[in-house]
């Protein structure tokens, strides 16, 4: 092949541009896909935890998911508010709940030390012993989110504190 130098340089430049564009495209796409996966994971987690109804309009970039509270969401919020009224250190983010920004709402549960403090105080105030029951912030989360009484005596605590009506009244 007898190509002029100019022609060869041009070919190399065109080739380099091609590769550049290709790499850039795939790099962006890979990052985008990762962000999409992360976002969808978060939506699925929040929808499950807060018993939300969800409409998935797009699962590709840009992700489009709408979340709406269900009747069970209201029950979760009621339990949460009742505890927060008595123990204000457990934040009840009214504004974020009003705005239905559930991802922001969930940040209130990030600090597990604080949650551990709340549950300890609850047991202390109710003069119910938690000995040997492995009570921790998970007990509190189980109660707020699932109204789960098992594996602890949290039911006695919330009844004693007047957060839940006593069993006879039901």
């Amino acid at each position, binding site marked *: 092949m007898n190509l002029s130098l100019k022609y060869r340089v041009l070919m190399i430049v065109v080739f380099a541009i091609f590769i550049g564009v290709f790499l850039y495209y795939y790099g962006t796409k890979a990052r985008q896909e990762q962000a999409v*996966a992360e976002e*969808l*994971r978060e*939506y*699925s*987690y929040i*929808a*499950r935890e807060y*018993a*939300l*109804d*969800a*409409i*998935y*309009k797009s*699962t590709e970039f840009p992700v489009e998911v709408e979340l*709406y509270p*269900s*009747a*069970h*969401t209201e029950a979760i919020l009621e339990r949460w508010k009742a505890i927060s009224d008595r123990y204000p250190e457990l934040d009840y983010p009214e504004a974020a709940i009003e705005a239905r920004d559930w991802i922001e709402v969930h940040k209130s549960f990030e600090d597990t030390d604080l949650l551990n403090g709340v549950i300890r105080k609850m047991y202390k105030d109710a003069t119910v012993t938690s000995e040997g029951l492995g009570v921790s912030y998970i007990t509190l989360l189980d109660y707020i989110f699932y109204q789960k009484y098992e594996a602890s005596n949290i039911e006695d605590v919330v009844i004693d504190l007047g957060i839940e009506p006593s069993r006879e009244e039901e």
Partner: protein
Amino acid sequence: MKKKKVIMVTMTIILLIVICYFAFQFVNQNQDIEDAIEQEFRSLRIYMEEIYAIEFLDDDRAMVFYSWAHPDFSNFGVMELEKTWRGWQFVEAISNRMERKNAWLKGVYAEITDHAILRGPTWASVDKIVIITDDGREYTPELGKAERQIWYLILEDEPFEEATFILYDSDGEVLREEVLQFDLNS
């Protein structure tokens, strides 16, 4: 000589395109919808799911009825898929939270793309359901069975806000009558 070369190259390219087209067709025809559904669940980050029914609206549209989430599968979903040149693709999905606890039957109204759907959980012992609306219309919803059971109805006429549901067992005996209300704005 040069002309021959150009023709050769053009022919090769055309041949490749034709082969690609048929390969795509072949892969598409043989794509198992259940694999596609599985993949969509993964991309929605939904684990622990149960599929009750796959309803084909026509050759290239399908609705999948499922429920998801540990521990009691209380999030009831319906997902619409469309067959395109890339195979089955996600169109839209809706998920509603309904708890089965102590209820014979639950139900919600939802709109997905241009379809109105009523659906909800019911006991596994229910074998047939008849819906009677206040204005006298009668429907027999489909039942979708997996480990648990749901009922669903793809509405083709006007939606209704309230209806009586008559639940029958496998002997045709009436198990129960329930009145359900639907919020048409959700």
